[in-house]
């Protein structure tokens, strides 16, 4: 009931705003493209709508798509989905105190969650406090995940199934940036609530960090009383691009309750490296991320659940036409290609000494049309090979995907 009320309230607010876009009361605050932005700035670097002199701005984005896919010749037919509708609300409380929240309605409202809701207090450009529900800065995608920014319909598998994007938690931390000439260096460090036992006690039959996302109590209390530490540093050059290195780690299991020892303390640690660049004279955009995960799985459990995982993606986007098309000013037609990999169980079988498989490889060529920078119409062809734990012949899945994503 509360969710429904919240949904209709926000929808009504959004609808009212959109209906009045042409009114002088409403003005669009475009994303700030003038500064040297980094992935860590993605949450603020979004278009917002502001009503008259109200101190609150709103925005959001919608994704909708259709797919026709099949595995080993068995098709599920054509289906349509609205994977997410996100609504942002931001406010500058004082000149150096900001509030921003993002509420996401996933799968047509089946899941509604506060993805981000934090207050930032600037003490110095190099030293800011942030608290609330924050996006853990592991990799780049987790922070910079808005649908309209991507030329691909599916989110990268490594960034959603090894790093459980979008992964946010209640906590506090600090961040800052230092700019010098064409360089900017940034850091972030947070203590938050974190994972739980379900990463190795789930019905996926593999170590699965996203299982912890089902535990919404992490916004209310820690599962085991030990904070998850997330730290990231990144450096960007105006012409060369950005490189980020990040780590997230902590105890994931309930090792003690009511003063009684239940299990050993078991850690989960993720290391990620991300980068992006634009080859200036041909405008080719290259974006990638790789993550390694180490999970302390009890040796007496089952090797079905891996204690190491790794994966990543590489996106190449090439604008081929950038001009007025079909009546759209400054529209762009891109071709794009993604290659991605996720290995959920890096290791060898104790019984045979041979490699454990359990991995996915995917290739995704695509075409995207951007009538404006706020909107993207995407057409992808996805082909992926999934190999089971034992390394048996891969199952092959392919699909045509068509959809759009737009800020509003």
């Amino acid at each position: 009931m509360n969710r429904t009320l919240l949904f209709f309230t926000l929808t009504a607010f959004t609808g009212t705003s959109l209906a009045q876009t042409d009114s002088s009361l409403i003005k669009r605050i475009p994303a700030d493209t003038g500064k040297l932005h980094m992935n860590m700035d993605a949450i603020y670097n979004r278009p917002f709508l502001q009503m008259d002199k109200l101190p609150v701005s709103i925005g959001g984005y919608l994704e909708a798509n259709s797919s026709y896919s099949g595995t080993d010749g068995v098709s599920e037919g054509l289906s349509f989905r609205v994977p997410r509708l996100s609504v942002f609300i931001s406010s500058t409380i004082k000149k150096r105190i900001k509030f921003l929240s993002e509420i996401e309605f996933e799968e047509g409202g089946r899941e509604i969650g506060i993805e981000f809701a934090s207050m930032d207090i600037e003490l110095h450009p190099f030293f800011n406090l942030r608290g609330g529900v924050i996006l853990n800065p592991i990799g780049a995608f987790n922070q910079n995940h808005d649908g309209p920014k991507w030329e691909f319909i599916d989110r990268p598998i490594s960034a959603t199934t090894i790093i459980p994007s979008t992964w946010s938690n209640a906590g506090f931390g600090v961040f800052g940036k230092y700019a010098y000439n064409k360089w900017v260096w940034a850091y972030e460090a947070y203590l938050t609530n974190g994972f739980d036992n379900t990463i190795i006690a789930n019905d996926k039959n593999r170590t699965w960090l996203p299982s912890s996302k089902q535990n919404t109590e992490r916004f209310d209390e820690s599962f085991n009383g030990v904070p998850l530490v997330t730290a990231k540093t990144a450096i960007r050059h105006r012409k060369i691009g950005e490189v980020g290195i990040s780590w997230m780690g902590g105890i994931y299991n309930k090792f003690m309750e009511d003063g009684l020892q239940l299990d050993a303390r078991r850690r989960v640690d993720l290391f990620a490296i991300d980068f992006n660049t634009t080859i200036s004279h041909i405008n080719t955009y290259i974006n990638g991320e790789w993550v390694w995960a180490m999970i302390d799985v009890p040796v007496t459990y089952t090797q079905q659940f891996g204690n190491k995982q790794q994966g990543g993606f590489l996106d190449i986007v090439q604008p081929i036409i950038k001009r007025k098309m079909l009546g759209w000013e400054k529209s762009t037609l891109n071709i794009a290609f993604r290659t991605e990999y996720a290995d959920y169980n890096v290791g060898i079988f104790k019984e045979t000494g041979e490699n454990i498989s359990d991995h996915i490889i995917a290739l995704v060529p695509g075409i995207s049309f951007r009538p404006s920078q706020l909107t993207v119409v995407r057409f992808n062809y996805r082909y992926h090979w999934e190999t089971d734990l034992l390394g048996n012949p891969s199952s092959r899945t392919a699909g045509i995907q068509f959809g759009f994503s737009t800020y509003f």
Partner: protein
Amino acid sequence: MKQNLVLAALSLAIIGLIACQKMLPKTPDNDEILDGPVDGLSNSQNAQFLAGDIAFNDEVFSPEKGLGPYFVATSCGSCHAGDGKGHPFTTLTRFGQSDTTGNKYLQYGAPQLQNRSIPGYAPEQIPAGASSAKFTPPANTGLGFLEALTDAQILSNADPNDNNGDGISGVPNYIAPPSFFTPKWYHQSVGGKYIGRFGKKAAAIDLLHQTVNAYNQDMGITSEYSPYEPGINGIEGIYADNVSEPEVESSNVLNVVFYLRTLKAPVQRNQADAAVIAGKQLFINTGCANCHVQQWTTPFSDIGALSNKTFYPYTDLLLHDMGSDLDDNYTEGVAKTSEWRTPPLWGLGLSKNSQGGKYFLLHDGRATSIDEAIKYHDGEAKKSKDLYNQLSEAEKQNLIKFLESL
């Protein structure tokens, strides 16, 4: 010009959507995969097959769903990828019985070792002095046909005293039935025991018996048929987890049983290949077919698709003495420690596709090629093995090609 390019790109997208069926991976040939139902199921039977398929292959047990606390695998599909033979990763260990008088280690958690445990628990250990054997999970295909056979049909191949003098004396394993076992019209009781058909030692009488044991012994999942957690040190229940019993609904168990009954029989490949034809003749000439009986015909079955069907499993479902090399000093029922049930050979050529790309053959996976598996045969199979060893290399290859076509 550029506008035309945009239109061309959009047209391409639309054409792609129309042609999407062509862009999907093709269906594997029916003879290249082991899973799939028998022909002739009704719509309602298809629905039950599908429910069983999901319960068998997709239902994963976590500690919250009752896994363990002691277990071997987390799902049925973990041991039987693609419904084929299993991998050493999920090989079972049984212990505690070394003669026909029964298992002396039941109070220590026998007969099956649960070598894994959920966090916070220590897995079971084999007690000192107990003998043990490893059992590789078998393929599931065609089991319904084997279950449909009558005891009389199985007994027709038994020759306990080797009256025909061929050196082969197949015997049935008689098993004390579990409390939930209901004899069918084709079962024959001998002193309250029934012929076992499934398992390396033929210790399971029917597929419900096999399935209930697998849920309980392999995954630590209780059912109304087997309501206690697998015991450790014989103290059933004391080490139970916090999940209320039964941990799997009876409907799921019965759907899995129906799924196993109605999985298709493997389809032989390359039957017209000259090498395969020659290999089949050598298989008969060397006496392999005396135990690996080629052809059976089912009687009436309550599942129409299994009624009066001729099928080719290459087993007699009887126990045979396989010699000292394959004697692990462990047994079940009234089988001797050197006796093993003749394993069906159908689907043998597809085993590598479920065993990670290589063979793990014989009861414990010790043979990594068909040739090696044949050479491990001894006891009642010694004569056939010797004849195989006398074949030329080309003849051996033909025989192996035949076996790989099954």
